C-alpha cells in the first residue's frame, strides 16, 4: 500500500503538473482569448482524469494510513494554502469560459496563473519538508521555498512540453521557447534542492541518486522538442517531476510503511484494490488512447 500511495502521489504531480505548467504560463503562451482557450484545451479531456489521482491518494491516505493524515495535515497552514489554491485553480478552469464577458475571462486567467503558481510552489515546499524533516538546521525556513521554486520550474517546463505536443501554430512555438528558456533554471533549482538535502537530510542517499538522475531531464526534453520528437520530450520532462518525487518517497518509505492500517482493513482495501486497480488503469488508458490526438476548435470547452 505504501507503493500504491507513492505511485498515486507521483502520478498525480506528474500528470496534474502538465496542468500546473499550462496554467502558470497561460497568459504568456496565449495572447488572446482563442489562444488561451487553445492552451486550456490541451489539458481539456485530461483535467478531471488527472486531478482525481490526488483524490485517490488522499482517500488512500485516509483509509490505508489512518494515523498519518492527522499527523501530516494537522495544524499546517501550508495545507490551507494548498487547498485554497486548488479550489481557485479548479474554479478558474471550469468557470473561465462560461462567462461571455472578456473582462471576466481575463480576470479568471489571472486567477489561474496565480493559483497554478502557488500550487507547485506549495507542493514543493511540502515535499521539501518530507525530504528533510530535521528542524534543527539553520536553513529550515529557506529550504521549503527553494524546493517550491524548483518544483514550479520543473512543472512549468513539463507543462510547456505538454502544450507544445498538443497544439499547433504560435501557441506551440511559444511553448517550445518556454521549455528552452526554463530548462537551465529548472536544473539550477533542482540542484539547489538536492544541495539542501545533502546539508541536512536524515536519509540522503535514495533522494540524491534519483533526483540527480532528473537533473538533465528538462534540457534533454527541450532538445527532443527541437528535433520534433514531442512525445519523447514529454516522457523526459515527466521524469523531471516524477524522479525527485520517487526519491523523496523512497527515503521516507519506512516511516510510511509503519503507519499502515490494521490487518483487517488492509485486507479489505487490498482485496478491493486487486479487483479495481486494473479497472482504474484501464479507464485511464482509454482516456489517453481516445484523446491521444489534439482536439480542434470544435473540441473546445475550457
Amino acid at each position, binding site marked *: 500500500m505504501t507503493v500504491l500511495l507513492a505511485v498515486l502521489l507521483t502520478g498525480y504531480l506528474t500528470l496534474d503538473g502538465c496542468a500546473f505548467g499550462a496554467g502558470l504560463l497561460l497568459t504568456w503562451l496565449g495572447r488572446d482569448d482563442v489562444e488561451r482557450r487553445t492552451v486550456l484545451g490541451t489539458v481539456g479531456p485530461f483535467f478531471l482524469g488527472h486531478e482525481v489521482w490526488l483524490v485517490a491518494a488522499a482517500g488512500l491516505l485516509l483509509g490505508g494510513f489512518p494515523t498519518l493524515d*492527522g499527523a501530516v*495535515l494537522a495544524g499546517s497552514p501550508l495545507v490551507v494554502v494548498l487547498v485554497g489554491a486548488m*479550489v481557485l485553480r479548479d474554479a478558474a478552469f471550469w*468557470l473561465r469560459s*462560461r462567462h461571455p464577458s472578456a473582462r471576466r475571462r481575463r480576470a479568471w486567467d489571472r486567477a489561474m496563473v496565480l493559483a497554478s503558481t502557488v500550487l507547485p510552489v506549495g507542493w514543493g515546499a511540502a515535499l521539501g519538508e518530507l525530504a528533510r524533516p530535521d528542524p534543527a538546521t539553520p536553513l529550515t525556513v529557506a529550504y521549503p521555498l527553494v524546493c517550491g521554486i524548483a518544483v514550479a520550474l520543473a512543472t512549468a517546463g513539463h507543462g510547456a512540453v505538454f502544450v507544445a505536443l498538443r497544439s499547433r501554430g504560435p501557441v506551440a512555438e511559444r511553448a517550445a521557447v518556454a521549455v528552452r528558456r526554463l530548462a537551465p533554471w529548472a536544473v539550477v533549482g533542482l540542484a539547489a534542492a538536492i544541495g539542501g538535502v545533502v546539508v541536512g537530510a536524515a536519509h540522503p542517499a535514495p533522494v540524491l541518486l534519483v533526483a540527480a538522475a532528473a537533473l538533465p531531464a528538462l534540457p534533454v526534453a527541450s532538445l527532443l522538442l527541437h528535433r520534433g520528437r514531442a512525445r519523447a520530450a514529454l516522457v523526459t520532462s515527466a521524469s523531471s517531476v516524477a524522479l525527485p518525487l520517487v526519491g523523496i518517497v523512497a527515503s521516507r518509505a519506512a516511516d510510511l510503511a509503519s503507519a499502515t492500517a490494521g490487518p483487517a482493513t488492509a485486507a479489505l482495501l487490498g482485496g478491493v484494490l486487486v479487483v*479495481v486497480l486494473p479497472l482504474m488503469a484501464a*479507464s485511464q488508458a482509454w*482516456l489517453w488512447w*481516445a484523446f491521444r490526438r489534439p482536439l480542434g476548435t470544435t473540441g473546445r470547452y475550457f
Partner: protein
Amino acid sequence: MTALDLARLQFALTAGLHFLFVTLTLGLAPLIAFMQTRYVLTGDEPYRTMTRFWGQLYVVNYGIGIASGLVMEFQFGLDWDGLGAVAGNVFGAPLALESLVAFFLESTFLGMWIFGWVRLPRWAHLVLIHLVALTAIGSAFFVMVANGFLQHPAGGVLRDGTFALSDVAALLTNPEALDAFWHVLAAALLAGGLVVAGVSAWHLRRDTGWSEVFTRSLRIGVVVAAPAALGVVNRGFAQFDYLRVDQPGKLAEAFGGTASVPAARAAVPGGQLPPSWIAVPAAVMQDAGFALAGLCVVALLALLVARGRPTRMRWLLRPLAWAVPVPFVLVLCGWVVREEGRQPWVVYGVLRTSDALSPTGPGTVVLSLGVFVGLVACLGVLDVGVLRAQVRRGPGSAELPDAGPVPAVPARAL
C-alpha cells in the same frame, strides 16, 4: 466560541454546502443517461438537445462540486485527527473506497464524456454517461457506509481504545447505512427530477421557443420526481425502526415530542440527549416534504390528464418552477437532524465529538473556518450564478463541445 464549536461549525457548513452539489449530481446523472439513451436509440434530435442542455449544467456543478469536496476531505485530517486515531481503521476504509474506486472512475469517465461529443462513437459515449451515473451511486453508498458507522459502529471491535475492522458484511449492511442510503438516493432523484421539471416549467411559461425539448424534459422530470418523493417519505419513516434501537434520543428529540424525551434519556449512553432544537429542521423536512410530494403527485396526475401536454396545465408551471430550491433545503434539514442528533457522540456511544478534535488552537481553526467556509460559499454562489445564466440562455447555446452541423457539400463537388 471554543475551538470545538468553531471546528464543528466549519464541518457543518463545508459538508452541508458540499452536499448540495452532490444532491444535484446524484439526481441529474440518471436522468441525463436516460435522455442520451433515448437519443441513441431513436435518433430524435430533441433528445440530443436535452442531453446537452442538462448535461452542461451537470458538468459545471460537478466541476465546482469537486472543489468543495477537496475542502471537506482535508478537514478530516486538519481538525479531527482524534477521529482518525480511534476509528480510522474502520471509518477510513469506505471513504478510501469511495475516492479510490467510485470517484476516480466517475471523474475519468465524465472528463471523457465532456469531450466525447467530438471524438467518441455514439455507443461508447453512451456507455460513459451510464458509468458516470453508476459510479455516482456507488460513491453515495460508500459515504453512507462511513457515516453509518459513526451513527452505529457495526462491524468494528474496540481494542485498547481503537477500532479494528472485524466484520465487513456488518459494516456494509449496517441499517444506519443502508436504509439511510436509499432515503438519500430517493431525495437526490427528487431534487434532480424537480430541477428538470421546474426549469422546464419556467421555460414553457415564458414560451422561450424550445417547447418540444422542455415538454419532454418536464415529463421526464415529473415522472421521476413523483415516485422519488413517495420513496423519500417511505424510506424516511422506515428509518424509525433502527433509530428506535440505536439512537432513541435522536428519535425522541427530533420526531417524538416532549413526552417521549424522559424515557429516551434513560435509554441513551451517558444519559445525554441531542439538542432539542433538532425538532425544528425535522418538522421542516417532514412538513415541506409532504407538501412537495403532494405537488409532484398532483403534477403527475395532471400530466396524465393533459395527455402529456403541459400547455394544458399552465396553472402548475409556476409552482413547479418555485419548488426547485425546496429539495435542497430539505436535504440540509435532514443532515442537520442526522448529525446533530448523534451528539454528543461522533462515534455513537464510544467517542465524544469533543475528544475527536485535533489539538489545534482556536486561532488556526478561525483561520481555516474563514478560508474554507468562505471558499465553499463563494463556490456555491458562483455555481448558482453560472447555472442560472445557462438556464436562461437556453438550449441554443449549450456549451459542450460539438462536432458541429453536417457540413454542406462543397461547391466544386456540384
